């Protein structure tokens, strides 16, 4: 029995996957690619609509449906989740003819005229560990198994098509953000009025997890430790923006950073909210107000036509004016897409390969994480803001609605 996504346009989370595949195939034809071998997690999410936690591949022929190849222990589940049926989700295993190289190479050759052609592959690099680029070993093995075929790096084809988000994708992110807000409310209820005393960062992470899971989140998707919780000096690592929860106990007079993640149909919620545990010093409040003000200003500035470098320039100028530029990490975004897509903005066309192009021009219906980190290690304090935003012509739309602020907890 399969339980695929509702494929009617009445479903707010509907994504027209067959059309998406046809668009890929049209672009393949333009580029003279006879078959596309995708290996990145983002490509799998974007084409198969299923979370593939094990090494997986998607083969997109010149026409017809794609076929996903994944570890056999998870293949039936992937087929159940995906819009593709069991005939288009294959399991591989260490058995004769069933290992991933031979199985996929045979499949590709069966889909090519005379078993020959140009095969698009995904080769590159990323700071995001589970990206899924074809490894050197896999490349050489596929090259050997596909004699007579030319392997060409073609990931830009997918990246271009995935850049602008359709309404179904945006709605999935909205729902994931709504769930994240439920997690934030649960954390607030738990820590207020001295409730935080004796709690650890890991416990805070768990409180958010329970609430978000109850609300339907599939998991705390971030590879940075699920929900990132930091307290005290851990909020203020110099240049830092990654804090897997530790066993550190929350203390009065310290900051608390709650950066939580929910997933809904591969759409990702990612919002960070910040607290100060009473008693709060004037210096702490000054840092907090700086942070809130720069977040407001950043959200007011994002719109189509602006670039990451322009945003950074404006915001760092504001921070300089206000005297807190020393505490700002000069980056105000990171990329986001369906599960597996959490690295650079836009395409791989910047001065540093596989980093965000600072001159990328935002377009309407791009989705990104408005992200900034404020850190003053000397004062053992820091704050983080993250929120998925949709770019519109003259403004941006933050998807998490949890009220912006640095709340004081008594």
């Amino acid at each position, binding site marked *: 029995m399969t339980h695929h996504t509702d494929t009617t346009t009445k479903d707010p989370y509907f994504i027209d996957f067959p059309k998406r595949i046809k668009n890929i195939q049209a672009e393949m034809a333009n580029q003279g690619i006879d078959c596309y071998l995708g290996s990145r997690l983002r490509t799998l999410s974007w084409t198969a609509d299923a979370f593939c936690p094990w090494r997986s591949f998607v083969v997109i022929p010149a026409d017809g449906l794609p076929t996903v190849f994944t570890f056999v222990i998870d293949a039936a589940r992937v087929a159940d989740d995906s819009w593709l049926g*069991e005939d288009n989700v294959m*399991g591989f295993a260490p*058995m*004769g*003819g*069933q290992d991933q190289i*031979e199985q996929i190479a*045979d499949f590709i050759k069966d889909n090519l005229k005379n078993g020959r052609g140009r095969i698009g592959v995904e080769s590159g690099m990323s700071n995001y560990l589970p990206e899924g680029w074809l490894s050197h070993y896999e490349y050489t093995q596929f090259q050997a198994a596909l004699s007579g075929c030319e392997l060409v790096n073609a990931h830009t084809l997918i990246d271009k098509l995935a850049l602008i988000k359709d309404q179904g994708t945006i709605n999935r992110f909205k729902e994931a953000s709504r769930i994240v807000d439920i997690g934030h409310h649960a954390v607030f209820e738990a820590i207020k009025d001295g409730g935080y005393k004796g709690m650890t960062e890991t416990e805070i992470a768990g409180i958010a997890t329970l609430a978000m899971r109850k609300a339907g989140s599939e998991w705390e998707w971030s590879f940075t430790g699920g929900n990132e919780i930091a307290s005290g000096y851990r909020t203020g690592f110099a240049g830092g923006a990654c804090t897997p929860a530790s066993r550190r106990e929350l203390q009065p007079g310290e900051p608390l950073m709650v950066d939580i993640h929910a997933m809904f149909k591969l759409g990702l919620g990612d919002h960070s909210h910040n607290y100060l545990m009473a008693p709060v010093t004037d210096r702490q409040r000054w840092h907090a107000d700086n942070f809130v003000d720069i977040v407001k200003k950043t959200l007011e500035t994002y719109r189509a036509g602006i670039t990451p470098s322009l945003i950074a320039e404006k915001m760092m100028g504001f921070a300089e004016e206000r005297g807190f530029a020393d505490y700002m990490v000069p980056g105000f975004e990171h990329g986001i897409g369906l599960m597996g897509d959490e690295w650079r903005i836009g395409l791989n066309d910047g001065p540093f390969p596989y980093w965000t192009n600072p001159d990328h021009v935002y377009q309407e219906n791009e989705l990104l994480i408005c992200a900034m980190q404020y850190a003053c290690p000397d004062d053992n304090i820091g704050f983080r803001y993250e929120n998925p935003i949709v770019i519109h012509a003259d403004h941006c739309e933050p998807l998490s609605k949890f009220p912006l602020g640095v709340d004081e907890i008594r």
Partner: protein
Amino acid sequence: MKSRIVSKIVDFGEKSDFHGCVKNGKLSEEPATSSCHSAAVKIAPRKTLGANNSTFHAANNISSNPNTGGFPMTATFQYLSQQWRDEAEKRLTTELPPERMNFVTSSMSNIYLNCPPDGSEKYLFFKFVEGKFAEMLVGTGTPPKAEFAIAGDYQTFAKITRGELSAQKALMTLKLKLKGNMVKALKLASLADRLNKVLATIPTEY
């Protein structure tokens, strides 16, 4: 090579107090610890030794035996010959009714490489429609298109049929290659096992 296994302990299941031994095709009652053989084959309790639940192989020139599911065992059949195919079809039709095959619709080609005496390639093609045995072909050259294709050396298949090698081990050691949807194959593994067990009852000369 002729099948050489002439005796096996048979265990009639947990509910049975009977332990027997097949010697030269004859079933005799013996304690399980007897010297008759070491390999135990479980079969249904209190039932005549049936072709579908035994893996013993009859030796040449065995006369008709009630313990072979009623099939006369007066001759051996050359593996993959037309006579062997006919015998296989007879046994599969009798022993594997649709409910035993879970009403499955599927097809499979076994591709035998390096067949004696000339090293040729042969195939054995099966087809089931809604659990009903529909087609079985033996031949040389390209097999009919099937949902699954399993290729391997003739001697590998012979070893599997004689019970000297499990199909799973053969696959895991690259002695056999499977082409087809692995997930579906896993669903059908027990059915393939039933089918092989029936084929294994045919007195066969390899």
